[in-house]
């Protein structure tokens, strides 16, 4: 019974959708191949992957997780959040605070407890909200709790009074904007303009060592896989259908007896937690977190990843995140002045011509098996 139930779950989550199978297979391949190519082949070998590349792919994975989070609220629940980068950044700050405290006496000022910027600002003791961040488990809990609680509080206020559509988008934008202004302030105690950086080690390992990089890469891959499956489970459950019903006809859903606000709230909060985890994995890999992560444009960019990939499909969100960010990496290195043109045009083209993103385009180009099935059934 137990095995049949779990195999049943397995069938539902994975067997039902080819995109998911392709995604998981690719993720597994990359997850195995990248560490091998990095560690097993010496530098200079044509098969060797540099630390830079490992970190870059790891970064893309955290972006993909963030994109899934946005897709869950936008593609499935119809909430266009233009503030998800805020949750990402908060998760990142929680991790960054842990990493700051791990620096210990290796900082420029060599203070055992106080991070450099506090010594610089002439602070005498650690602010209360920095307590506990010397412990990894505490920081890990905060990575989940801080974005989650903020999303619950914000969502409670917004959804309860039925703020929807563009109004909601605009106040999510205002939320991240307000947080950006706040984090830019030195006396907030988060390093102000410069943010948190110069990390030395994470859970006792040198943060720049090859092995640590591979471990962080694997952690990102695992988080992406688990996050994906969790979202897939949610979207396939009855609750997932309710959520999609809310997207398509909110008040109708209310009239058949669902507490729409409550559904929206929990989906929003879960999505914020995913974004927070993505941020927490992002920060040790890129080595810095600063208030510019809260910039309104960042949140909007995430939305365009999802739109490019194809909202309403989780693998589409992943594809979009990787594609757009690969393009960004390429452009900003090769033709930096063209990047904004490319990004801007992408916004316009996708919204005008590709409402279901590249995934929808791919579907259109392949035979319409599923539709036919549905019609003949």
């Amino acid at each position, binding site marked *: 019974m137990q095995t049949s139930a779990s195999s049943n779950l397995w069938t539902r989550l994975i067997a039902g959708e080819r995109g998911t199978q392709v995604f998981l297979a690719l993720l597994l391949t990359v997850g195995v191949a990248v560490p091998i190519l990095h560690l097993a082949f010496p530098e200079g070998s044509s098969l060797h992957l540099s630390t830079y590349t490992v970190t870059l792919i790891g970064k893309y994975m955290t972006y993909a997780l963030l994109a899934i989070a946005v897709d869950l609220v936008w593609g499935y629940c119809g909430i266009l959040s233009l503030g998800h980068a805020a949750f990402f950044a908060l998760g990142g700050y929680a991790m960054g605070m842990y990493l700051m405290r791990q620096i210990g006496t290796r900082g420029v000022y060599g203070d055992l407890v106080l991070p450099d910027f506090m010594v610089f600002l002439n602070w005498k003791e650690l602010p209360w909200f920095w307590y506990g961040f010397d412990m990894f488990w505490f920081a890990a809990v905060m990575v989940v709790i801080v974005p989650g609680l903020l999303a619950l509080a914000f969502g*409670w206020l917004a*959804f*309860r009074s039925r703020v929807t559509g563009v109004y909601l988008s605009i106040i999510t934008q205002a939320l991240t904007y307000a947080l950006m202004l706040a984090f830019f302030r030195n006396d907030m105690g988060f390093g102000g303009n410069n943010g948190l950086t110069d990390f030395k080690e994470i859970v006792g390992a040198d943060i720049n060592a090859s092995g640590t990089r591979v471990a962080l890469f694997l952690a990102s891959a695992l988080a992406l896989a688990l996050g994906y499956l969790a979202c897939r489970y*949610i979207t396939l*459950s*009855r*609750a997932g*259908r*309710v959520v*999609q*019903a809310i997207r*398509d*006809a909110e*008040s*109708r*859903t*209310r*009239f*058949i*007896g*669902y*507490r*729409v*606000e*409550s*559904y929206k*709230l*929990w989906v929003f909060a879960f999505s914020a937690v995913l974004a927070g985890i993505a941020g927490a994995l992002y920060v040790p890999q890129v080595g810095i977190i600063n208030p510019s992560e809260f910039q309104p444009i960042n949140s909007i960019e995430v939305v365009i990843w999802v739109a490019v990939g194809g909202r309403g499909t989780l693998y589409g969100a992943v594809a979009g995140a990787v594609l757009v960010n690969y393009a960004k990496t390429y452009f900003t290195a090769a033709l930096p002045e063209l990047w904004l043109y490319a990004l801007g045009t992408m916004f316009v083209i996708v919204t005008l011509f590709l409402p279901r993103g590249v995934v929808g385009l791919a579907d259109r180009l392949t035979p319409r098996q599923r539709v036919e099935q*549905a*019609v003949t*059934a």
Partner: protein
Amino acid sequence: MNASTSLRNGWQKVFGAGAKSERPPPGDTSHGTILYLEDISVSFDGFKALNALTLYIDAGELRCIIGPNGAGKTTMMDVITGKTRPDAGSAWFGQNTDLLTLTEPQIAEAGIGRKFQKPTVFEQHTVMENLELAVAGNKAIWSTLASPLDSRQRTHIEEVLETVCLQDRRDMRAGMLSHGQKQWLEIGMLLAQQPQLLLVDEPVAGMTPQEVERTAELLLSLAGKHSVMVVEHDMDFVRSIARKVTVLHEGHVLAEGSIDEVQNDPRVVEVYLGE
């Protein structure tokens, strides 16, 4: 209501905590009346959509509501289902459920189902999924997230599918159904909810004569077990099902009685034909 209880209610509404204990009781019809609307007034921007409307529906009754455009039929349904809060008046479901204190989902849970004027089914969902969404049961998020439907609910859905003749369309996306089929699906969703009181807004608009006939049969068969309130323009249809008709005009009840009485009432004639 003081601030702390209002906050607690808001908390429960949104977080779904304590939803079970808070579920409103079903309509108590021990006095033979299921819906009491008394002196209900609603105004938009100075325009009185409802003007001291008083209306009672008996348990098990099939009532037709007619009236010219702008008479307040849809606004009345909005008030009953919690979409619009009236400026004045009271609305009770049975003896002890005050509708004006409940939210839309709470009212639905208490046992009032509504079919909209425009068919609003979930077009991206299959027929089956539409019914699964509507079927009576625990609709809190933790339940829908964790557990599939139980066998009783599945049986009920099969029954409904049969009633609305959509068995062979069960896996089709609702958006691909014909207009009449959408109407039926929506009626099916209403049935799946197992409400005590059904509010049905223009059920036969866009239906073929055969479909209209079957709808009439269906509504008639529902009366007795359920109470049904039908808003309809099609007088032939009203004639075919109605026992008692209420005429609304300018937000209040103009006349009430059998279809013949109403049609011969000079005030009704005047409203429909003009001065």
